[in-house]
């Protein structure tokens, strides 16, 4: 008994452990903001991505060009630069100067481009005969998409969508650069005050890992359910 408490007591004699222990509520609050930014960005990205994916496959050249330009730009430039450009260079002109909002818009636009490609691939993965069967019954293109193609594409799209969710969650650490007080930003502040690099960044890394691993397990579960259902 005394041996166990002895170990705990000796841990508290380590400066780095004290720092992490005292700041844990502060870090967890930051982790929650990370999750918020990710969830809101993914929600925005899913709406954008659905349209980007559909437009990409549209017969209308203008819609197709808009979608290609959007997807190419946001996949072809660093998210870090997009965050800076939008927050300092574009959004202020639209009356947005709150960093949290900028962060969601930047991450949402970025994930929308990736999700657009996921949606396109999902639609193209549905057997060509499905569209032909729907059209041969007399459905127009929109009816065939809504009732036949998209309900099948969504099952194909779920696993890569969860991967995108996880990737974006990690990438939101970049919004610390515009002073959104998420997990990485808070790690930076605590580190700057204490210089306990290994303890502070180790703790931050473990918190990220716990979140992404949980999401990954959730994804595996959903994938299994879809495979049987």
């Amino acid at each position: 008994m005394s041996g166990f408490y002895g170990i705990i007591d000796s841990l508290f004699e380590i400066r780095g452990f004290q720092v992490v222990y005292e700041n844990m509520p502060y870090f967890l609050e930051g982790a929650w903001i990370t999750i918020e930014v990710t969830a809101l960005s993914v929600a925005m990205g899913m709406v954008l991505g659905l349209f980007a994916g559909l437009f990409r496959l549209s017969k209308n050249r203008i819609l197709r060009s808009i979608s290609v330009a959007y997807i190419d730009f946001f996949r072809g430039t660093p998210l870090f630069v997009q965050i800076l450009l939008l927050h300092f260079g574009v959004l202020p002109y639209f009356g947005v100067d709150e960093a949290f909002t900028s962060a969601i818009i930047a991450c949402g636009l970025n994930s929308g481009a990736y999700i657009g490609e996921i949606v396109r691939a999902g639609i193209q993965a549905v057997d060509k005969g499905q569209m032909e069967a729907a059209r041969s019954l007399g459905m127009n293109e929109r009816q065939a998409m809504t009732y036949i193609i998209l309900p099948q594409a969504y099952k194909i799209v779920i696993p890569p969508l969860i991967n995108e969710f996880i990737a974006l969650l990690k990438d939101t650490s970049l919004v610390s650069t515009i002073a959104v007080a998420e997990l990485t930003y808070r790690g930076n502040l605590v580190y700057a005050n204490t210089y306990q690099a290994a303890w502070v960044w180790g703790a931050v890394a473990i918190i990220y890992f716990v979140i992404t691993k949980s999401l990954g397990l959730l994804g595996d579960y959903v994938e299994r359910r879809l495979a049987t259902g």
Partner: protein
Amino acid sequence: MIDIVGVYKSFGKLEVLKGINLHIKPREVVCVIGPSGSGKSTLLRCINQLEKVNKGHIYVDGEEVTDPKTDINKVRQKMGMVFQHFNLFPHKTTLENITIAPIKIKGMPKNEADDLAMELLRKVGLEDKAHVYPANLSGGQKQRVAIARALAMQPKVMLFDEPTSALDPEMVGEVLSVMKDLALEGMTMVVVTHEMGFAREVGDRVIFMDEGQIVEEGLPEQIFTDPKNPRTQSFLSKVL
């Protein structure tokens, strides 16, 4: 019922239909036979515009489907199509596969569509499979559901694109017997097929196609017992 006038169709450099003329009367059962790559399926797919023609005109029930101004979705509702690979909707039950088009396109009330679907399922002998998903049906059952699905739009013409070619041999009979019943009811049918027995027994007329052209046509008896064209003779000698 169907008029095909001077139809040409190419895929890139490959010309698959070279001047097809064909007139199909109401209630007629026309069987199209010929070697692979002769253009049979392409011709069928041109009739409901799953393929666009390069030249020529096709009229169905008085409407020109090859005219871009025609509302093709409206005309397609008068033509049922049955595919080689069934193309049932895997995310819908048998019943939903049949009811989705009448409900979503014609705005038929759900209970009415369900009654219609059950009646059609009885007709193809599958009323006990109404709430089963396609993955749990055999090939022959899938194809019978696909026929019921096409009939749910109450079409005037049925197009069959090699409906038994993807089936295990023991399942061919059940599909052909449903098609035979349909023919006896007076449905206008165009059947692309390799089932010579069916063409001979059920067809009113047999069309032999080769290299994108109609080489010979006539009554089944005449084509199968006394083919005039040497290409028909050589094809039939290989398959019969």
